[in-house]
Every structure is written in C-alpha cells, then in structure tokens.
C-alpha cells in the first residue's frame, strides 16, 4: 500500500473533483454579482444625464435610437440621441414607460415570440432576429411597411402588423395571427424599441449596413 501512487487513488480524484467544482462555482457566483450590477436596468435620470447603461431604462422609448460603429470598441453600439415621438408622445414618465415595457415583455412570452424568432439571438430560427428589429430599414421611411400598413410612423406600422400579421405578408412564410390586441401591440413595440437600445457587444454585426441603421440615416 505504501508505494501506491496518488494518481491511481480514487479518493484523490474525488477530492480534486470537489475542489475544481467548488472553485468554478465560486468564480461563477462572483462574476454573476458583477454582471448583474452591469445589466441592471437604468432609469430616467441616467438617460437625462447621459449615463450609458448596457440596458437603459424604459423611458428610452422617448428617444431616437441608432446603431453606430464605435472605433474604440471595434464594433457597433446603440446610441441614444435626441427626443423622438413614440405614438405621438415623447414625454412618457418612468411609470408609463415601465408599464408599457412590462406589458410588452409579458406579451412576448404569452405569444411565444421566441418559438419562431430569436431575441438577442436566442430562440427559434423560423423568422428574423428581433434584437434590432426596431431599426430594421423595412420599417423606416424608405421601407415598404409604412405604406403597406397605411401608417405614417414606424411604431404605428409595427403595431398594425403585429395585430394582423397575416394581412401583410411579404413572404410565403407568414407570421400567424396571435390574437394581439391594440394595447398589447403598443407594449410589444415598446419592448422591441427598448431591446434595440441594449448594448449587445456588436451583435448582430453590420446590422442594416445595406441602408439605414448604421449611421443613423
């Protein structure tokens, strides 16, 4: 027994497993604290004071959002610009905007958006990624969706589409009617606009570089 090598000793490996697992878990928990702080939602004061948050507060819907190349970071980042009307208003209070976002996030789960689309790149691959769909050129003034839905603004066009998607098909693969009400559609559009303001480290790469989003035009 005395000259048995530790390398063939089960108890040695059992202890190693325990230590390695413990160490990795502690490190993960520590990183989780750091990350949680960094991805906590900002608030209205941050937006007013120009404090950049990875996940801005809900009142970001009062502002124009673009997606610009950041030379220092080497990829595109969301840029929150001047005030912009959202369903005719640019003065949503923290509570009002928060309630819209809450409704939209609940709606995204209640209608299973993630089981056709990807959000932040996670989900299903049957339909376009929604991470930056708010910035998609198709919804902009040069895109086809506003005239197709007969609406003058991006948000109204999106809300109209979400309520009656199969009335405005652009491809054989259509989005079905999910029983989305007018109020729910407004919440969902707020949710999509908010999501487009999240700093996703440059994903999706070159979004909309063909026209539109990259330099905010």
């Amino acid at each position, binding site marked *: 027994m005395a000259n048995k090598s530790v390398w063939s000793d089960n108890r040695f490996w059992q202890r190693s497993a325990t230590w*390695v697992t413990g160490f990795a878990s502690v490190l993960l928990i520590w990183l989780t604290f750091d990350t949680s702080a960094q991805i906590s939602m900002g608030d209205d004061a941050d937006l007013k004071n120009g404090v950049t948050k990875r996940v801005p507060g809900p009142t970001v819907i009062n502002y124009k959002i673009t997606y610009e190349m950041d030379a220092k970071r080497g990829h595109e980042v969301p840029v929150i610009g001047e005030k912009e009307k959202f369903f005719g208003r640019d003065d949503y209070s923290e509570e009002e905007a928060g309630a819209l*976002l809450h409704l939209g996030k609940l709606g995204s*789960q209640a209608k299973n958006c993630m089981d056709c689309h990807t959000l932040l790149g996670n989900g299903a691959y049957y339909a376009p990624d929604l991470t930056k769909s708010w910035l998609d050129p198709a919804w902009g003034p040069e895109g086809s969706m506003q005239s197709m839905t007969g609406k003058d603004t991006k948000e109204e066009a999106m809300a109209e589409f979400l309520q009656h998607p199969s009335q405005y098909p652009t491809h054989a693969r259509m989005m079905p009617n999910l029983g989305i009400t007018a109020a729910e559609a407004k919440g969902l559009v707020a949710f999509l606009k908010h999501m487009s303001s999240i700093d996703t480290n440059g994903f999706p*790469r070159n979004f909309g570089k063909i026209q539109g989003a990259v330099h905010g035009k």
Partner: protein
Amino acid sequence: MANNHLTSESKQLATWYFTFAAIIFGAQLLFGLVAAIQYVMPAFLFELVDFSIARIIHINALVVWMVFAMFGSVYWLLPDETGIETVGIKIGKLLFWVFAAAIVVVVLVYLLVQVGPADETTIWFITEGREYIEAPRWADFGIVVVALGFVGNLFLTGMKGKQTGIVTVLMADMIAFAGLYLAGMFFTDNISVDQYWWWWVIHLWVEATWEVFVGAIAAYGLITMIGAHRKTVEMWLWIEVSMLFGSGILGLGHHYFWIGTPEYWWEIGALFSALEPLPLVAMFIHVLYDWGKTQGSQDAKGEQLSVINNKPAFTWFVLNAFGNFLGAGIWGFFHTLPQVNLYTHGTQFTSAHGHLAFFGAYATILIGMFYLGVQGSNGIKVMKNTKLSIWATSMITGGVVGMTVALTIAGYVQVLVSRAQMGATWAAYFDGQSGLWFVQAMDWRLIMGVVTFLGFVLLATDLLRTGKSAVHER
C-alpha cells in the same frame, strides 16, 4: 415491457418511467416533423398548429422524455448499486403518476390553448414562452415537488445502502440538476437578466449536470454489461467529473457574448468552453478502452466469447461515446469562439449542433437504458441484437446524422448570406432562407427526419417484441 421477472419494485418503477419516456419521444419526433414540413410548405397547418406550437411541443417533449428516462435510469440502477430496495418507493410511484398527468395536461394546453393575453395568468396557466422551459408556473411548482421527492428517495437509499462512487456522484449531481430549475422560474421585464438566468438552466443542465449523469450511467453500464472493474471505472468517473464541471460551469460564458452582458465573458466563455470537448474525449476513450481491455482478457483465456451481455444496449452506449464527442464536442467547438459565434449565433448552425448533441449525448445512452430495462424485465442473461434492433439503430442514427449535415449546410448559407454579407436584417434573413442550398437543405432535413421517425417506429416495435425473441440466452 413485462415486469414478471423483476423482483425489485424500484426496477418496476423504472420500467414505467422508460415506457412513458419512449411514448413522449415518439410525440417529440412527430411534432418535429410538423415543424420541418412548415419550413418546406409554410401553409401546412397555418393558424391551426403554427410553427411555434409544433416547436414548443417538439423541444419540451424532448426535455421531458429525457428527464423521465433519467429518473427511470436512477431507479433502475439503485438496487444494483446500493444492494437494497429503494427507500420511499411508494411515494416514488405516486409521484410518477402526478408527474405524468401534469405533463399530459401541460402538453394539451400548449396544443389546444396555445397563447394567452399578455398578463400573469398566461404565465401561470398556459405558457412562460421561454424556449425549452415554456411549462407554465403551476407546472414548475409541481415539477419541483416531484424532483424533490425523487432526490429524497435517492439520498435516503444512498445513505441507507452501500454508497458506491457512482451513487455518490449521482446524489451530488441530481441535487444540482433539480436546484438549477429554480433559476428559470421567475419573470422579469429585463430581457438581458431573463436570458442570463435562463442559460443557467439550459447550459448548466446539458453541459454540466446532465453530462455528469451520463458519466455515471456509462460507468454503471460498463460494470454491468461488460464486467469492467469498478475501481477503474470509478476513478475515471471522478476524473470526468472534475473535467466536466471544471470546464462546463464557466463555459456558460459562451452564451453571454451578445445578450447585453459585459465583454469579459468573451474571454471567459471562449477559454472554458473550448476546454469542454476534453472530458468528452476522455469519456470516449474510457468506454472503448474498458471494452478492449475486458474483451482482451477474455480472449487471452482462449475462448471466442463476447464479454457483452446486452448487445443492443451496449451498441447504444458506444454510439453515445461517439455521439457525445461529435455532437457536443466537435459541433459545439465549431461555434464556441466569439469570433465565429458573432456570425453563427442563432442560425441553423445552432440547430445542427443542438440536434447532434442532444441525440449523441443523451438520446443514445437513454435508449440503451431502455434495452437494459427490457433485458431485466424478461430475465434475459445475454441479450442479442435482432434484425429489427439493427435496423432501428441504423435508421435513427443515420437520420439524425443526415439532418445534422443538412442543417450545417443551411447554417453555412445563412452565415454567409444573411449575416456576413447582408447584416442580419429582415430582408437579409429571407435572402438567406431562399438560397438554393438552404432550400435544398430544408428538403433533406425533412427526408432525414422521416427516416429518423421510421427508425423510431422500428425501435418501439423492437422494445415491445424483443423480450420474447428466441435469439437471446436466458
């Protein structure tokens, strides 16, 4: 599966779990086919059973049948490992029915109710709308109760009977497995926080706790099926646990590249997840090495005898060694570095990996356990492959590999056209989807899916029939 040869109640309960799992496996494949048909013919069941609904059932059924088969596997091996009857078996049986009934209700609601209004009642009673764990909250609580009962039985039995290395690993692993589910149960408006914790469930299941479970089951299989030496097997098991948890826990970072989380996850995720294939190589070598070693010492005795006492099960265990390495190790490594993942994230490439990994790492070994169940229930000493076993194995494996190849090609088109060239917009997405290679790949995925499904029908038939076959030694 007839239970007449089983004296252990734990093993009887295991066969219930296996039977229910096999049925749900069939449902999984059926709804996978619906979703695959919709890629080719979008009008199929449109606004009746939409893609989202077919897909929810496909992937939830996947998770459920695997969890059932995993619980079953533990109930199967406990009496062998601990040397005693499982403690709390009556409660175990009751919980089985509770669990099965809850699952049936959840699936019927997915299928018949589908969606709800944007409020909390939908989250409580219809769907939580988060991939893989859409189960509404009432079911979450039910699942937690059932899981606690299961873990309780495992602990009480392990502490009362002989606590082997395999049982020790399973005890630690199953409690982590059950505990992680809690991370997926809450609602938040912040989608980045939502995804952060969602991955704790998904990743820390499949790339940590479930993998360790597979290590333990493979260890048990090697001991019971080819008479490998426990000391060696358990030493390997502990090494595998260190490597799997050592890489897999922080490998979680490969899902935190783009969801709003800080940049340091690029380095952490890349480093640790790049190490994740190593334990899979180790597990592969382990199975083949032990097989060669025991067969070698048998050959040295001068008799032409196989050491394997359950051919179909062992075939599936060896396929697991290959499939785990290929599907999780190789296909996972392909897209795990942020430089690559920036383009492949959320494409058919992910789906290619998802299919081969879930199949290779889990479906294989759990089907192997079904065959161990059939062997035990029918009192078979040496179980052979029937023609049907061989056809079933080949068609299922060939089908899934075929689907994986098709999806990989589709992913390649999507990465080049939709992502690299055009920048991921709505228009870019559909330009990729209408590429010739993409369209053909979707046809091939469907064809290979049908092959897989037919293979499953043969598998089910074989599982029902082979117990009575005369080819086995009794």
